[in-house]
């Protein structure tokens, strides 16, 4: 599927990152439109995770620009990015003792106060991701890496996030759980920028952005599955 008429969500314009004289990203330019699913691939150290970090404001640019919904990324727009974005890494931090507390954590913050989901809503989103309701009362430190990733994903869905930055999110999942995650991201309203090596994930993405030593070397389009 192509999205030329959809509004741009993210635009990297010659984004460059240099840390202690080492170039991590070198003049990266690409646009991600609403609903698109893109995957960054490349060898370890090619700069894939840095692309995600720069977008979240965790790593500053030394050259070029990043635009979010056509506004340059700055101290004000970063708040909008963080409000709308869910980042799920390989070993997500849940930040609470139990899974239930982890899912409800963001609703303690002023930005989401008053929108606390019901138990029924929690269970529904867990079921969507192939997680049993009993996981709610488990200690978050004792669940597997794949379960943590799906709990983090569930938290993003509960918050109504529409941009997902995913770092190897299917790497620790069995086939059924993976299908459940694919089904979630089949939603055309969700935009995804991911880092992955999983061939099945790559196949389901609209675009593959290949990185090599901080440069965008190749951009391929797939038919959407």
């Amino acid at each position: 599927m192509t999205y030329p008429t959809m509004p741009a969500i993210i635009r990297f314009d010659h984004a460059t990152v240099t840390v202690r004289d080492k170039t991590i990203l070198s003049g990266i330019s690409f646009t991600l439109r609403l609903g698109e699913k893109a995957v960054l691939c490349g060898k370890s150290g090619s700069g894939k995770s840095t692309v995600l970090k720069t977008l979240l404001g965790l790593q500053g640019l030394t050259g070029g620009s990043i635009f979010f919904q056509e506004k340059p990324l700055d101290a004000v727009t970063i708040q909008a990015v963080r409000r709308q974005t869910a980042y799920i890494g390989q070993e997500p931090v849940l930040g609470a003792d139990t899974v239930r507390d982890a899912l409800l954590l963001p609703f303690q913050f002023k930005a989401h106060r008053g929108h606390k989901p019901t138990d029924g809503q929690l269970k529904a989103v867990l079921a969507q991701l192939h997680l049993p309701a009993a996981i709610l009362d488990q200690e978050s430190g004792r669940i597997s890496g794949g379960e943590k990733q799906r709990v983090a994903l569930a938290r993003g869905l509960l918050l109504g996030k529409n941009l997902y930055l995913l770092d190897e999110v299917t790497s620790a999942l069995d086939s059924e759980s993976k299908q459940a995650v694919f089904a979630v991201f089949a939603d055309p309203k969700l935009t995804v920028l991911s880092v992955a090596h999983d061939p099945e994930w790559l196949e389901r993405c609209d675009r593959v952005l290949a990185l090599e030593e901080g440069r965008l070397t190749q951009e391929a389009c797939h038919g959407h599955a």
Partner: protein
Amino acid sequence: MDTLDIALPQMAVLYGLCLAPWLLLWLIGLRLSRDIVISILRMGVQLALVGFYLKTLFSLNEPWLNALWILVMLAVADLSILQRAGLKLRFFVLPTFIAIALSTLFATFYLVVLVIQPPHFYDARYIVPLAGMILGNCLQGNVIALERFYSTLRKNEQEYMTFLLLGATRWEAVRPYYRVAVKAAVSPSIASMSTMGLVSLPGMMTGQILGGSEPWVAVKYQIAIMICIFTSTTLACVINLKLSLRNAFNAYDVLKDEVMELRK
């Protein structure tokens, strides 16, 4: 009743007591002779200077001189806190100074003006030693608060960033570490109040009794100083950490790499 003075030959006898721990340390293989000698010499020289200063300060009893002395104490405490907490001066020198100055001056003047009520509130005999005791304890608390806060934050940076990405403001995201740090800083002061008189006889009270005060007067002064220490330490830590947040983070709420000194 005047306190008995310790004559110089008796001072020499006193220093002789150090031979016992020195010998013990040497026997168990700890070679600390240099550190022990330097520390004992420094203590002697520093206290002699303080004794000289205090004698002058008390005899002149000029408000501006007393204020200047307190200012010097605050500046030294400020530098000492940051050095011991391993934090860079350029980010923290001002917030720490403001926090310890506000809290120490508030507690000292509260005690002197509203409680002790000497003929002149600026009387060096009261404000200089009381401010010094309050500030000394405040210093310990602030070292613990700053060190604990920034090291815990650095250690839990992923968790902190997760909170931000879940919609927390900078203040909401640092609050768990803020609470831990303030608790660690004020706990010794709370514990010290609860065991006072049972575990040890406090230094100020002992000093006053040796100086000829009635035990009841010494007890009341001890209670007063403990309450002021607890108040000023809590105030200083809460204000200091809150003020420091403005300088320690970049515009994207990320803790700056360069705020902490590299530990050797």
